[in-house]
């Protein structure tokens, strides 16, 4: 029993931390954005952002981000989710927008297939990014994907909405509800018709239209296997939100220390200091809860309800805490926080999408409540 980072977790953090140092942070936070209204050369700024995104992806791949979950027999590191979430925390603090989280999910889908495509797995581990597309309507979400695209033949027709980072991906995994559970179709991303949304994050969100797009591979997941895949995606996303919350809290604390009113830093007023202290405490508890959920999912059986419960709780908790922290951080920044110069407004805009990306907190908690009341035995035996 150790509630502290293991040596593997520390190694992963150290390995990737350099990519997210203070100097690069502000650029990474903006690399997914459309140019601001004040941009002198919008086309040039957009090209710069594209270059940054490609450079960050290459760096992540070089550092091994796409090999972390892959078994050693396919050239991966197989470090488990306990270590992956440490990277996700770093991504969240940097407001990283790119295909990594989707790619990790796609890797798990491929690795869970009875017909292992070793070459494809190796290709993705080597940096072929995958976008994941479960939404046909705005009511759809990863654990409740939209209907099939087309007539179940060898090609896809129809629309998938709110898909991230498609232009940077080599593949797209279209996820759909199916009689046997969930069926996913891998297609080439090149040549897909995409429309970038005009949305609050001004980020990398796209509508994708399929018209006779040939399917490269199908993957069918039963309900139990899909629930576990979803749980792991939730844990990664929860860790990302923990990182986002930490990034926003750090900005708020810096601002509270630097900004002076009434002759002293505003952070020395109890009203503000106590609020930030409470949020820092809630965030610390959430971080360990998410890390705990990650450690648990590495060792639990497919049918272990406790892991599913923890994953949903972790994401709901992280979603709540990032919401509280970002709104408080905006208040701490005052009018400055509303300006394009301030990083905190990026957090405010991104929080709207990221907090509900894999389900709203209330929905997640409603989902696991029936399971929770049935799994109350021997809970002291493990953390």
């Amino acid at each position: 029993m150790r509630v502290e980072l293991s040596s593997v977790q520390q190694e992963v953090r150290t390995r990737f931390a350099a990519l997210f140092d203070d100097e690069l942070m502000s650029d990474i936070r903006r690399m997914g954005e459309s140019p601001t209204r004040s941009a002198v050369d919008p086309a040039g700024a957009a090209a710069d952002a594209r270059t940054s995104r490609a450079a960050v992806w290459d760096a992540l791949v070089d550092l091994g981000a796409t090999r972390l979950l892959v078994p050693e027999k396919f050239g991966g590191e197989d470090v488990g989710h306990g270590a992956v979430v440490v990277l996700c925390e770093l991504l969240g603090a940097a407001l990283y927008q790119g295909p990594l989280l989707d790619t990790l999910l796609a890797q798990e889908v491929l690795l869970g297939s009875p017909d292992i495509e070793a070459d494809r797995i190796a290709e993705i581990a080597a940096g072929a990014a995958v976008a994941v597309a479960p939404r046909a309507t705005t009511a759809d979400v990863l654990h409740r994907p939209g209907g099939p695209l087309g007539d179940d033949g060898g090609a896809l027709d129809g629309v998938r909405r709110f898909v991230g980072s498609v232009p940077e991906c080599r593949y797209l995994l279209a996820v759909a509800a199916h009689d046997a559970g969930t069926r996913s179709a891998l297609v080439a991303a090149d040549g897909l018709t995409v429309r970038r949304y005009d949305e609050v994050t001004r980020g990398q969100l796209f509508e994708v239209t399929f018209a006779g797009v040939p399917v490269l591979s199908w993957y069918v997941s039963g309900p139990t296997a899909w629930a576990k895949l979803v749980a792991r995606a939730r844990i990664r996303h929860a860790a990302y939100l923990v990182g986002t919350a930490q990034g926003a809290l750090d900005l708020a604390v810096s601002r509270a220390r630097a900004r002076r009113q009434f002759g002293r830093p505003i952070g020395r007023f109890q009203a503000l200091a106590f609020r930030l202290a409470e949020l820092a405490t809630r965030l610390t508890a959430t971080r360990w809860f998410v890390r705990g959920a990650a450690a648990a999912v590495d060792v639990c059986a497919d049918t272990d309800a406790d892991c599913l419960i923890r994953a949903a709780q972790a994401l709901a908790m992280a979603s709540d805490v990032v919401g509280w922290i970002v709104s408080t951080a905006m208040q701490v920044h005052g009018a400055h926080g509303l300006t394009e110069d301030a990083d905190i407004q990026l957090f405010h805009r991104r929080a709207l999408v990221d907090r509900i990306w894999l389900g709203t907190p209330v929905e997640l908690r409603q989902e696991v409540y029936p399971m929770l009341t049935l799994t109350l035995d021997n809970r002291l035996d493990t953390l």
Partner: protein
Amino acid sequence: MDLRFTEEQQRFRHAVRAVLAQDEVRREVARVRALPPTEEPGLLRAYRLLGERGWLAPNWPVEYGGIGATMVEKAIVTEEMIASGVPDVTHTLSVDIVGLALHDIGSPELKARWLPPLAAGEAIGCVLFSEPGTGSDLASLATRAERDGTGWRLYGRKLYGLKTMMGDFGLCLARTGGSDVRYQGLSVFVLPLDTPGVVIDPLWAMTDEHFGDVALDGPLVTEADVLGEVGDGWRIAGQVLRLERTGIELQAKACRAVDATLAGTPEAIGYADRLVALDAEARAGRLLSWRAVGALVDGGHDEALYAMAKWHTSETAAGAARLAAELAGPAGCLSRRDPDEPGGTLVEHGYRDAPGFTIASGTSEMMLSIVATALGLPV
């Protein structure tokens, strides 16, 4: 990060659980949970059964009544005790706080005198810090120690000390002088409560555990009764308080309340959102507490971590107790003494206990102050 206890730790947990599941312990728990309002649970048979095995203070050396284990085993005992409904205040106070302070700071003589009876469940140690005008601002205390020959006489009044009416001794913080700086010139005395000059009146509280109003009219203590060094009281008091702040007992109470509520009201679907969130907070608090325990095992001094653990677990435990009471309906207001009480629940008890969680051992506001300071926002 490893959420699993070792096999040895698991065996220990299950052995403790088996002791607490004995019929005589269950009968005693049922009895003391329904005591008349003017009585309070003291040294229980359950403590002695654990004490006989060296398990009441397992982290102490064998010579002092423990088994030479670590704070991990100690925390396991606390978790099991609370999960089984055994009143824990006497134990937490005597072993976790007072005993551990003696163990860490006391002279060999003090340890030899007091630790074995504490570890056996045969003595109670108390904390005598707060005063009529002194709560969170401990450095404002007025109790003074005056030289008398080679010893000291204590004068003042101590309030809000738990278990003082049945206690054997108390750690008394008093002003020994020598400095105008209010944080200096303080010392901690190990004061036997049967010393002439100590007069204790009950200070009845709404909780099952009562406070004492302790008048100190010149009881004589010796140099040997000084804990640590004379004049080092501020640091020692801080250390004693820190020992209280892993939140291990608070998270255990939160988990107990949440589990009982979930088991008792599975149909409370309207409360599903709050219950699942509360369950997650309770379990997150458990992780924070165990992280704090780990820091103590490693000899760490992470003040912000202890403050976070105490704040989080106390707020969650209080919230859990209030929600449990709300969900229990009118039956939740019945004490264990009432024949209509549904049996087995601690809802009414927990509701009375809840406000104290965020006050005792450092208020929530003091904890936030410590955390804010660690953030670079001293207030």
